[in-house]
């Protein structure tokens, strides 16, 4: 198998970062990163530089998602090259600083892998977020994590949508990996969520370690949920929501939503049904932070991606 000329070669992943507090009120990542900054024994691996880092300290201090603007949308080329220094919104300044420290985005000097730790109020369980269907290294890592975590579930969300994809903190790395665990209220630390995130990160670091030691990972397939469409709440002429996620849809992340199924409930008790033409798999259902982003949930479709074998170059 080591002579398989379809094996993709990647440089050893020597520089890895773990981001917490990209949203200051998503407590698992904040807590884990603070712990590891004090005592990194748990995350150390031979031959690997692992840097835990709080990306948005002001937001963490105030226990808010962001101070001026969402840091996890801020890593656009426009923002990264903006001039203005202190006049820029806080998170744009932070994005530039993070790009200097862990990037520059798109360059050979960028960190190999960044794990960005997030929580959601949605009932998503453990979710890995993938930004490119062509990243064989990430696909192999996610395959490894899913298998190691089984029988507990760890699903993969792929956001490659040309319009809905956004410029994340982790996108400065060559291999960006989002880790989203829910449900957990903003500002709350739940032990089950905290432990789950700790475990999936451990598996991720084990994978990198094994890869760096020269292990070849054979070709594999990975089931993913590909983002299709953002669904907003029904709103009135003033932009106020006029309905809530229906009780039948609430908490049903990753379960099929069929045409005709209940989707929203108005305040006076009427049901609004899903009018799509085919079955979709909704996720990020009723995420607190997305009311202002006009999103009640996002639809996905199930796909199986193939990843070539990979091996250290």
């Amino acid at each position, binding site marked *: 198998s080591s002579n398989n000329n379809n094996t993709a070669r990647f440089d050893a992943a020597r520089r890895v970062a773990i981001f917490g507090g990209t949203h200051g009120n998503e407590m698992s990542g904040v807590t884990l990163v603070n712990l590891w900054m004090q005592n990194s024994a748990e995350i150390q691996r031979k031959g690997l530089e692992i840097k835990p880092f709080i990306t948005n300290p002001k937001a963490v201090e105030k226990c808010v998602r962001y101070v001026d603007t969402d840091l996890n949308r801020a890593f656009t080329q426009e923002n990264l090259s903006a001039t203005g220094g202190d006049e820029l919104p806080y998170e744009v300044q932070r994005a530039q600083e993070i790009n200097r420290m862990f990037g520059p985005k798109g360059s050979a000097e960028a960190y190999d892998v960044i794990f960005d730790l997030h929580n959601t109020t949605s009932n998503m369980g453990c979710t890995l977020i993938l930004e490119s269907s062509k990243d064989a290294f990430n696909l192999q890592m996610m395959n490894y994590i899913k298998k190691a975590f089984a029988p507990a579930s760890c699903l993969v969300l792929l956001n490659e949508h040309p319009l809905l994809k956004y410029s994340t903190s982790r996108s400065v790395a060559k291999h960006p990996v989002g880790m989203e665990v829910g449900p957990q209220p*903003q500002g709350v630390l739940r032990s089950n969520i905290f432990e789950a995130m700790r475990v999936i990160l451990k598996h991720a670091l084990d994978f990198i370690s094994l890869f760096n030691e020269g292990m070849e990972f054979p070709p594999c397939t990975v089931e993913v949920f590909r983002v299709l469409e953002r669904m907003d709440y029904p709103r009135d002429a003033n932009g106020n929501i006029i309905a809530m996620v229906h009780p039948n849809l*609430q908490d049903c992340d990753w379960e099929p939503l069929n045409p005709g199924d209940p989707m929203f409930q108005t305040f006076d008790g009427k049901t609004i049904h899903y009018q799509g033409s085919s079955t979709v798999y909704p996720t990020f259902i009723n995420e607190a932070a997305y009311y202002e982003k006009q999103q009640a949930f996002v639809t996905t479709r199930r796909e199986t991606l193939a990843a070539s074998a990979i091996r250290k170059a």
Partner: protein
Amino acid sequence: MERTSVPPIHNVAICGGTHGNELTGVYIVREMQKQKMEKAGSVSVTTVETNPRAVAAGRRYTEMDLNRCFTDVLLSSPITESTLYEVRRAQELNAQLGPKGSAEAVDLLIDLHNTTSNMGLCLIFYSIDWITLHIYKYIENNLSSVPVRAIQLDIPSSKAYSLESVGKHGFAIEVGPQPNGVLRADIFNVVKEALDLTLQWLQKFSSGHSFEGGTVEAYTFVKSVDYPRDSAGKATAVIHQNLQDNDFKLLRSGDPIFQTFSGDILKYEGEDLYPFFVNECAYYEKKIAFHLAQRKTYSFPPISVKND
């Protein structure tokens, strides 16, 4: 107990948004205003969004927790340029719905809240008041989708700090679990049902109906427990999974309550008590991991309205 005659309830105020990120009350009040819910039989209904600035900001409060501003001291403190927004707002609400302790105060004030704790539906009140206990019993008998409980805070009226103390009678309806900034339809529906039952009861009461007496098991606040902290004041543990989501499940000495970040289990020591507000988000800054309560049984008499 002997049949008791109780003065009529002419008006009720239903309040939401006292904490701006507890969304059920905000949207219930807005919907009632949209439907022009102004009367329930002979009882007049007022709806108030109490902290609009906090609601607009999606925050619990802007400068100070509004629901701690209704003590006699704060309600009578002089207003200056530097007076915090919520202290000012509390005085406005006291003028509109009170004054607290006077004959002009609204007969019944109901304040709608959410919690991140797994508490089901709770009525929270200061005094053992026949109207409140009868309404509680009526809701408990008729609402089956969630557990319904009563919580009593044994604090004299002058020191009572929350909005419902402004009414002649008052209670908070606290429902969870719901994250801050999230509106769940199931929780909305439950609160709406509880309010419909309350208004039903008030109409029956006003029309002369006689209600049987009975007993209520209420949880009375005893003390609160903070997280273990390091020398810098940072919490060093998380609520143990055995306690998480187990509000109102009796806690005994030896039961795990915290798990430190390094994996040690910390156990409860003390008398058997009932935990509630377990892992309520807003209480981290108040240094509260959970509250503990005793459970007591109160009897209440049969009542009917006293004719004016």
